[in-house]
């Protein structure tokens, strides 16, 4: 505790009208002036502005302030800003306390009198705490200059290339046997109709051969520990049972393999063997054996692939490999899952052969697809003449658990309808939509071109699809613009399925301690200002793992995430939060409760000359305070959140006249 009486400056912010319209800021500032130790109390319109900050700095100098309290927005918003303000003026930044009278007062209360009383109480609590604060020094920790990118779709590919091109050693871990993600499955991209793989596969190849990139595919993240600048990541790679150097891609193994399975890359519309390559442009570009279905691995025998391989590339002895990666930053780029259309029973996907999804369509229309790019009715192979698209399948649908708009489906449908129009100039094409959303460069123009080319847009979401004996599809819908009931018999219906967070995201989010939004996607550190950062320092995010977005937005965000990661990784050392546990060895009786409760192994009871005593391992301590709360002797405390400081807040909240 500081020996002399502290000299406190209090700054109460109007935040324009955000606070000032509800809280009587002048009254709060006047009240603060009466609190013990307060030598300056001011109101300001925008405390975070240059002027506002300068006024604090001048007061620190002119009034020799030893403590600063700012009552404005959340410390999560501007805590760092004002800590820097103090630091620049020569005041230790940990002698600062922030009072949240915006998010937790003026924005949630309408009664001006009550809000003002609450603001006064909160300021008094902060003054009580700030009196007891002690200066803290930040420790430095060396930065491990490597990065990890989790996910090898377009988001992960571009993040990794940006980092690697900046000279940063980058690991890319991908769950599937090849990188490429969903973008590799698309035939064309909107609104330019660029060939998707033509623009992606050169970048995939770059990942495979970049000197700064180490690609680990067919692998899972087992465990993650550590902190910004110093993460330890355990990665488990599944065996492929094929030796990369020996595989010449001749395909004899797959020819001989007796097991035929649905080809995931082609949405099950084609078959693959148990030994296979996911798609021709796959990176890494060599075969693998699907252990779950290989006859030899599941039942023994067979080995036709091994017997026939001309290059001895098959190795059934391969086992899973576990590796430890040490990295300073992590970019999460695990993408999305397509909504499971079988859930929407009224549209008959999975029961009616001529109802397909938007991703099925991409494979039908692709040169590598089941019909080499010819879109046909799956039931009879006939070219469709009357085609319908249904929008918002699994999006904007509370019943299906997604209130949000998936953002890409409107344009994907316009693209697919445009491609159909090229292939079938006389076909009738109908799009059943809720609202057409075209907020992107060239999107509205693309949509209008579709309309000019005779694609019919009907406002109204069909309730259900019925099927006749010839697998024709009957749709009855209301055109909500005209109020007419429309009956349409169609050859083919494409469901524009929305985007969902991947099922495995929950587990990864828990391993990384990341928060998720109610929609299940990962929450960014700030929705406007920190869209590529998470609440965990050193962990960044990009692409659809944050929220559905298209390819240009994903690539842009990947650049942002990579820049943020690079800013961290190009430092030699970073400052660690000094909010850590400390032990008073005189009080410690060596009972070990603190050690038992610590999840980080950051406090240990050791033999000393004075007997068994707890000792804090500073770099491992994360500052949660569980040790302090469990110590029966009050021997352990957490700096900046000491018992004395917390109890001063409690007392000040309840007994206005008592400030210790």
């Amino acid at each position, binding site marked *: 505790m500081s020996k002399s009486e502290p000299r406190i400056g209090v700054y109460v912010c109007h935040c324009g009208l955000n606070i000032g319209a509800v809280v009587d800021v002048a009254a709060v500032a006047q009240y603060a002036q009466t609190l013990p130790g307060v030598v300056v109390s001011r109101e300001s319109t925008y405390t975070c502005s240059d002027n506002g900050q300068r006024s604090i700095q001048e007061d620190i100098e002119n009034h020799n302030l030893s403590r600063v309290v700012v009552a404005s927005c*959340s*410390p*999560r*918003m501007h805590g760092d800003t004002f800590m820097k303000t103090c630091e620049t003026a020569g005041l230790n930044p940990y002698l600062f306390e922030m009072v*949240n009278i*915006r*998010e*937790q*007062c003026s*924005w*949630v*209360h*309408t*009664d001006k009198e*009550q*809000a003002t*009383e*609450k603001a006064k*109480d*909160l300021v008094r*609590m902060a003054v009580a705490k700030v009196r007891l604060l002690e200066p803290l020094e930040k420790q430095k920790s060396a930065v491990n200059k490597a990065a990890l990118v989790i996910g090898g779709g377009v988001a992960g590919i571009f993040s990794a290339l940006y980092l690697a091109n900046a000279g940063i050693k980058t690991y890319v871990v991908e769950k599937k046997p090849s990188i490429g993600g969903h973008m590799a499955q698309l035939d064309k991209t909107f609104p330019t109709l660029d060939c998707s793989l033509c623009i992606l596969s050169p970048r995939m190849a770059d990942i495979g051969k970049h000197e700064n990139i180490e690609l680990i595919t067919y692998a899972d993240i087992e465990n993650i520990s550590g902190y910004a600048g110093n993460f330890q990541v355990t990665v488990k790679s599944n065996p492929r049972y094929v030796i990369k150097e020996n595989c010449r891609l001749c395909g004899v193994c797959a020819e001989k393999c007796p097991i035929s399975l649905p080809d995931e890359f082609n949405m099950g519309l084609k078959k693959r063997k148990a030994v296979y390559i996911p798609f021709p442009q796959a990176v890494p570009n060599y075969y693998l054996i699907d252990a779950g279905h290989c006859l030899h691995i599941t039942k023994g025998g067979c080995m036709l692939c091994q017997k026939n391989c001309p290059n001895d590339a098959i190795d059934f002895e391969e086992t899973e490999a576990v590796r430890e990666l040490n990295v300073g930053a992590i970019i999460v780029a695990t993408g999305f899952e397509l909504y499971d259309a079988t859930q929407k029973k009224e549209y008959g996907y999975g029961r009616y052969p001529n109802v397909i999804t938007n991703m099925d369509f991409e494979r039908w229309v692709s040169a590598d697809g089941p019909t080499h790019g010819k879109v046909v009715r799956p039931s009879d192979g006939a070219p469709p003449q009357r085609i319908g698209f249904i929008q918002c399948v699994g999006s904007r649908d509370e019943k299906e658990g997604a209130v949000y708009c998936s953002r890409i489906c409107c344009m994907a449908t316009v693209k697919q309808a445009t491609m159909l129009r090229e292939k079938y100039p006389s076909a009738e094409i109908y799009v059943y939509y809720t609202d057409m959303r075209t907020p992107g460069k060239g999107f509205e123009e693309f949509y209008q071109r579709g309309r000019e080319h005779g694609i019919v847009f009907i406002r109204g979401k069909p309730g259900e699809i019925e099927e006749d004996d010839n697998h024709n599809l009957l749709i009855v819908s209301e055109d909500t613009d005209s109020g007419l009931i429309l009956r349409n018999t169609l050859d083919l219906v494409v469901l524009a399925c929305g985007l969902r967070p991947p099922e495995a995201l929950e587990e990864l*989010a*828990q391993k990384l*301690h990341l*928060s*998720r*939004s*109610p929609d299940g996607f990962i*929450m960014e550190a700030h929705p406007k200002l920190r869209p590529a950062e998470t*609440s*965990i320092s050193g962990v960044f995010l990009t692409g659809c793992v944050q929220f559905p977005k298209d390819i240009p937005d994903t690539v842009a965000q990947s650049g942002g995430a990579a820049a943020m990661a690079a800013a961290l990784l190009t430092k030699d050392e970073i400052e660690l939060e000094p*909010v850590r546990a400390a032990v008073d060895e005189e009080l410690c009786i060596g009972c070990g409760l603190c050690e038992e*409760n610590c*999840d*980080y192994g950051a406090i240990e009871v050791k033999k000393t000359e004075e007997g068994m005593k707890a000792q804090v391992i500073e770099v491992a301590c*994360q*500052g*949660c*305070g*569980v040790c*302090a*709360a*469990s110590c029966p002797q009050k021997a352990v405390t*957490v700096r900046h*959140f000491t*018992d004395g400081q*917390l*109890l001063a*807040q*409690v*007392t000040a*909240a*309840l*007994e206005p006249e008592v400030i210790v």
Partner: protein
Amino acid sequence: MYEPKIIGFLCNWCSYAAADLAGTSRIQYPSNMRAIRVMCSSRVDPEHVLRAFVNGADGVLIAGCHPGDCHYISGNYKTERKYVLLREMLEQFGIDPRRLRLEWCSSAEGGKFAQVVTEMTEELKTLGPIELGAGD
């Protein structure tokens, strides 16, 4: 009218952020709670809660991350263990255990946070002011 006084210990990562989100979403709730930010709900010592009641709090809220989502691996589980014992202790002291609440609010649950404070305020109004030593 009687307005209960509530002390709220909010963990920095989830529930404090939830309270912020309630603000940015302009979700209104009663102004009875005074928040104290802690890094983790596990920092809350039973003594902090008892001292709040002794000093005249009508209710104490401890809010943390959902089970499994703790920023500090398993701090919230330890909070829960202490909470269960603390409620029993309150009962022995003659304090209605409903005056102490433990709630999980993720940083995305601004609505839930506002609802928790609203419900708690309403319940404390029916319980009336705390009277220590009077068999509250």
